[in-house]
C-alpha cells in the first residue's frame, strides 16, 4: 500500500519528480515511503516471564532482549529500544495489536502506548545509500558492524532516528529510517541534498523493506 499523495504522507510538499542523476550518470540512491498501520511503544519488565509470554501470545514473536536488535515476522517488527522498552510496527492494515497487548498483559506493570500518528518510516536504498546516510550519522553502517537483525537509535542530520537495515535476497541493503513525522520533511530534504553527488530518485510504488 502506498500512501504518497495523501495528506498524511511524509513526502507532502516534496517534489517527487525531482530525481537527479549523479556523477556516474544514474541514480545511486532511492527513497521510498514505507506504509505502517500501527506503531506501538511497549514498556515492561523483560525478566518477568508472564510479560514475555503475554507479548508472544499476541505477536507470535519473542521480544528481543539483546540491545539494538529487531525481530520480524509476517509484517510485524519488534525493535529493542531499551532494557524495558520496545517499539512494535505493524504493516498489515487488517491487524491491530494495541488492544490485544493491553488485554494479554492486564494486571502486569506495563505501558502500551499508541504512537501511530507521530512517526513516519521511509526507506533509503541503492548502491550509495550507505555513503549518503554516513554523511549525516556517526554510526558505523557497514554490513559487518550493522548486520541483518540489528537496529540502532542514533542521530541522523540532527534528528533522532531509529535505523534498521533490511537486507534483500540480492544482498542489497535498504535502510529503514524511522523518524518523528515533524522531522521527516527536514530529513528527506537533507538526504536529497546529500545525495546530489550520487543521484537519487523516489520509488513510490516500491515497498522494498517490507517484510
Amino acid at each position, binding site marked *: 500500500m502506498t500512501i504518497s499523495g495523501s495528506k498524511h504522507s511524509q513526502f507532502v510538499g516534496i517534489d517527487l519528480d525531482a530525481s537527479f542523476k549523479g556523477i556516474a550518470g544514474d541514480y545511486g540512491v532511492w527513497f521510498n515511503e514505507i506504509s505502517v498501520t500501527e506503531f506501538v511503544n511497549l514498556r515492561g519488565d523483560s525478566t518477568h516471564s508472564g510479560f514475555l509470554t503475554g507479548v508472544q501470545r499476541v505477536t507470535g514473536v519473542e521480544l528481543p532482549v539483546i*540491545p*539494538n536488535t529487531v525481530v520480524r515476522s509476517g509484517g510485524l517488527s519488534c525493535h529493542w*529500544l*531499551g*532494557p524495558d*522498552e520496545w517499539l512494535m510496527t505493524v504493516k498489515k492494515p487488517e491487524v491491530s495489536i494495541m488492544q490485544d497487548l493491553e488485554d494479554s498483559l492486564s494486571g502486569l506493570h506495563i505501558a502500551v502506548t499508541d504512537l501511530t500518528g507521530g512517526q513516519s518510516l521511509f526507506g533509503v536504498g541503492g548502491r550509495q545509500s550507505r555513503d549518503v546516510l554516513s554523511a549525516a550519522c*556517526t*554510526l558505523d553502517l557497514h554490513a559487518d558492524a550493522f548486520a541483518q537483525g540489528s537496529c*540502532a*537509535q*542514533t*542521530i541522523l542530520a540532527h534528528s*533522532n532516528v531509529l535505523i534498521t537495515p533490511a537486507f534483500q535476497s540480492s544482498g542489497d541493503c535498504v535502510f529503514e529510517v524511522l523518524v518523528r513525522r515533524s522531522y521527516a520533511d527536514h530529513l528527506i530534504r537533507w538526504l536529497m541534498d546529500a545525495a546530489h553527488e550520487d543521484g537519487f530518485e523516489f520509488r513510490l510504488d516500491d515497498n522494498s523493506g517490507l517484510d
Partner: protein
Amino acid sequence: MLSIDCPWCGSRDQSEFSYGGEAHIVRPKEPEKLSDEDWGDYLFNRKNTKGRFEEQWCHTAGCRRWFNAVRDSQSYKIEAVYKIGEQSPDGIPE
C-alpha cells in the same frame, strides 16, 4: 569528540549523550532535619575533581538510559562505565 561506551548500546559518539554531573550523590533520608548549610551542600556543592571522577551520563539519542562513568577530568579518558545500581570500580556503593 569522545567515543563513549554505553553499557547497553556499546561505543557511540559523544553527540548522542548528555552529561549529568557527579554520580553517587545520595539524597538525605530526612531532609527536613538538615541545617540550611547541609541542604545547600547536598543541592549545590560538587567535588570538581581533577583526575578520576565518577559521573553520570545519559544516552539521550540512543536507549535513553542513565549510567555512570569513571572519567579522568584531565585526560578525558573514560576508564569504566557501569549501570545505575552497580558498584563503581572504586568500590563506591550504588
